[in-house]
């Protein structure tokens, strides 16, 4: 019925599986069906492929393969980090995080709060970046963990995790980084950063959904949060998702090669900048939220004053362009984005903001078409909006 050709500008929500990754996943699904814990040859084949993938993922974040635990995705990794550290310590316990975290970290810390853990949510400035000095000031004797995201999913703002890692290390406090939106977009080196836990997700990296990993630094104090068999060195029980994991490995390998070549990301940054320039030049009453921050190259968050962001997302979808009002999870929620309001945007402007997240397949022609569609849709919405 709907014959519009759709162009995808929502890569922070998820990415298409790349053809190379698809090939290894399908091959594993069809042929490597052994249980990686089994003694026989089928199990050994699965185990071999899975461990190769673990080395690939470890290499991308500069970890030792033994420090990489496969999970079902970013949300599970974040929960494992926060709950696992909190449960490894006795009362009183205190955790420092920020106001702009993904719901996975916000939700896990809210649950710990109900269980008696004190939580400090460090505010951010207008750029959407947490101030390391505020993290330092929030430290208490009973602080058991600092958790800060590497790159924000809505604005792309890169957080000063290196500096915060330094502060945490000096204070002797473990540091968790939610790296879901950073992996594949900027180089990640957990060893150089000096973090203790680092969450990643495969489907933001052109691999399938339902697989992710948690980096747990060797020697970090941490308790398992789910219980069962001895998989993943007793850190995460359950038969491993071998096809997903080998897909993750292949995607990690490709991302690493991309960084080495230095090509993909500068190209995406150029497209992102082209989109911003076109919108800001051609559509009045617009601006980039958090433009002054250092950002991952593929993300921009733009406000269109006087516009209902939800209506604009729907109008663009009907014109064939997939964009988002923020994190995919908050669509349909009443409250405006917690990230944008934490940056000091009034609710009106937060509701008038749209996230564009570009990916490897986007082209100059697509960006120009999107800018044209935006110009058209925003003009129409402003004409009819009685509240503008």
């Amino acid at each position, binding site marked *: *019925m*709907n014959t519009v050709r759709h162009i995808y500008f929502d890569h922070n929500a998820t990415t298409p599986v790349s053809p190379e990754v698809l090939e290894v996943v399908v091959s594993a699904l069809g042929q490597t069906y052994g249980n990686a814990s089994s003694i026989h040859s089928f199990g050994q084949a699965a185990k071999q492929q899975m461990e190769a993938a673990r080395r690939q993922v470890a290499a991308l974040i500069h970890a030792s393969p033994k420090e990489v635990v496969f999970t079902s995705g970013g949300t599970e990794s974040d929960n494992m980090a926060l709950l696992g550290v909190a449960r490894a310590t006795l009362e009183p316990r205190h955790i420092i995080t920020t106001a702009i975290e993904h719901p996975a970290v916000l939700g896990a810390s809210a649950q710990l709060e109900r269980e008696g853990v004190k939580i400090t949510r460090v505010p951010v400035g207008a750029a959407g970046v947490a101030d390391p000095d505020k993290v330092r000031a929030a430290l208490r004797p009973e602080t058991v963990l600092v958790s800060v995201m590497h790159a924000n999913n809505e604005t792309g703002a890169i957080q000063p995790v290196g500096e915060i890692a330094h502060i945490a290390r000096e204070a002797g406090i473990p540091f968790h980084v939610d790296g879901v939106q950073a992996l594949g977009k900027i180089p990640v080196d957990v060893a150089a950063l000096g973090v203790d836990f680092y969450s990643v997700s495969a489907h933001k990296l052109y691999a399938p959904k339902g697989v992710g990993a948690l980096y747990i630094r060797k020697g970090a104090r941490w308790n398992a949060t789910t219980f069962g068999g001895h998989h993943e060195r007793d850190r995460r029980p359950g038969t491993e998702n071998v096809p997903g994991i080998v897909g993750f490995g292949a995607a990690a390998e490709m991302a690493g090669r991309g960084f080495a070549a230095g090509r993909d990301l500068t190209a995406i940054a150029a497209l992102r900048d082209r989109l911003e320039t076109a919108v800001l030049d051609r559509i009045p009453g617009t601006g980039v939220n958090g433009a002054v921050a250092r950002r991952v190259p593929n993300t921009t968050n733009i406000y269109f004053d006087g516009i*209902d962001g*939800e*209506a*604009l997302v*729907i*109008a663009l*979808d*009907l014109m064939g362009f997939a964009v988002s009002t923020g994190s995919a999870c908050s669509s*349909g*929620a*009443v409250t405006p984005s917690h990230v944008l309001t934490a940056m000091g945007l009034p609710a009106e402007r937060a509701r008038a903001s749209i996230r564009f997240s570009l990916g490897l397949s986007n082209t100059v022609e697509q960006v120009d078409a999107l800018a044209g569609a935006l110009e058209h849709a925003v003009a*129409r*919405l402003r004409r*009819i*909006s*009685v509240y503008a």
Partner: protein
Amino acid sequence: MPELPIAVAMSGGVDSSTVAALLARQGRSVVGLTMQLWNQRRLPEIAGEAGGTGRCCSLDDVYDARRVAGQIGIPYYVVNFEEQFEERVVKPFVEEYLAGRTPIPCTLCNNYIKFDRFLEMADAVGADQIATGHYARVRRCPESGRYQLRRAVDAAKDQTYFLFGLTQEQLARTLFPLGEMTKPEVRELARDLNLAVAAKGDSQEICFVPNGDYATFLDAYLKERGEALSAARGSIVTTDGRALGEHEGVHHFTVGQRRGLGVATGEPLYVIATDPRTRKVVVGSGNELLRSRAFVKDVNWISFADLCQPVRAQVKIRNKHAAAPAWILPAGAGNPNCVEVSFDEPQRAVTPGQAAVFYQDDLVLGGGWIE
């Protein structure tokens, strides 16, 4: 120039699902939209075990609407109007109850959400018309050029009582495809179209009030807002001033109510009036409920622009009331949009806050709110 789409308000029920499927089958370009109006998991003490499953705006309804949209192959979106709904429907509903009146939130929702905010969203998606599953008919009068609202063919399902507030601009852009059909015909059509919701039950109650229990909803809502009713207790008195007992707050009572008074007397007693100021609930015999006049404010005229001289009409003062013959009289120059209704026969329970809707047979002349 491609044909502009029709925005269909899809609740996940059989009526609006059939509307969407019918229009799509006719080859119209259709966009399905579900209005998320109220979070059924809010107010946990009244939400029930499944978080409001089975009521309007539950996740189940969105699931059903999305399934139908997928089945008939139309673009579908959920739009969130919770903030406007609370501001324009829930808050006035609560305030009216606390002021001793018995409000109709569905009419407010039609006036300010379904035919106002929703039309704006239709504009946003480029649709020039909207369609809903209401049982009512819209006609353009060839002589006056005005859009007329007429009762549905299925008298039992007719919803014009809740639609009297629609403006000419709103009616001009609205389609009620079910107005010419009976409910059994709609169900049969839904089955013919193989809609997944063909056998789904009808929704009856006010969507945000579980089990029709207004008083419990009011208590929970006020508690959430930290505005718990203070000194709500008052007395139950007869029309001649005898005190019969005490009550937990006038908002537990509505005019005409018989059950739940908590007082035992020989003859059946009815609530005749409530007074939030003195916290008195006045009770009396059935005959004392009879009124032959009513004042109606904020009148919206549909079939003509203004009332200049008295007209004959049948007046409906509750959804289930059989419209009663009456004269409608202009209330005078100092009271624009107000009329006096003079019934031929006295009517039971003319309830402040309810709507009075004026009919001439099928035709809705207009309506307003009983003072």
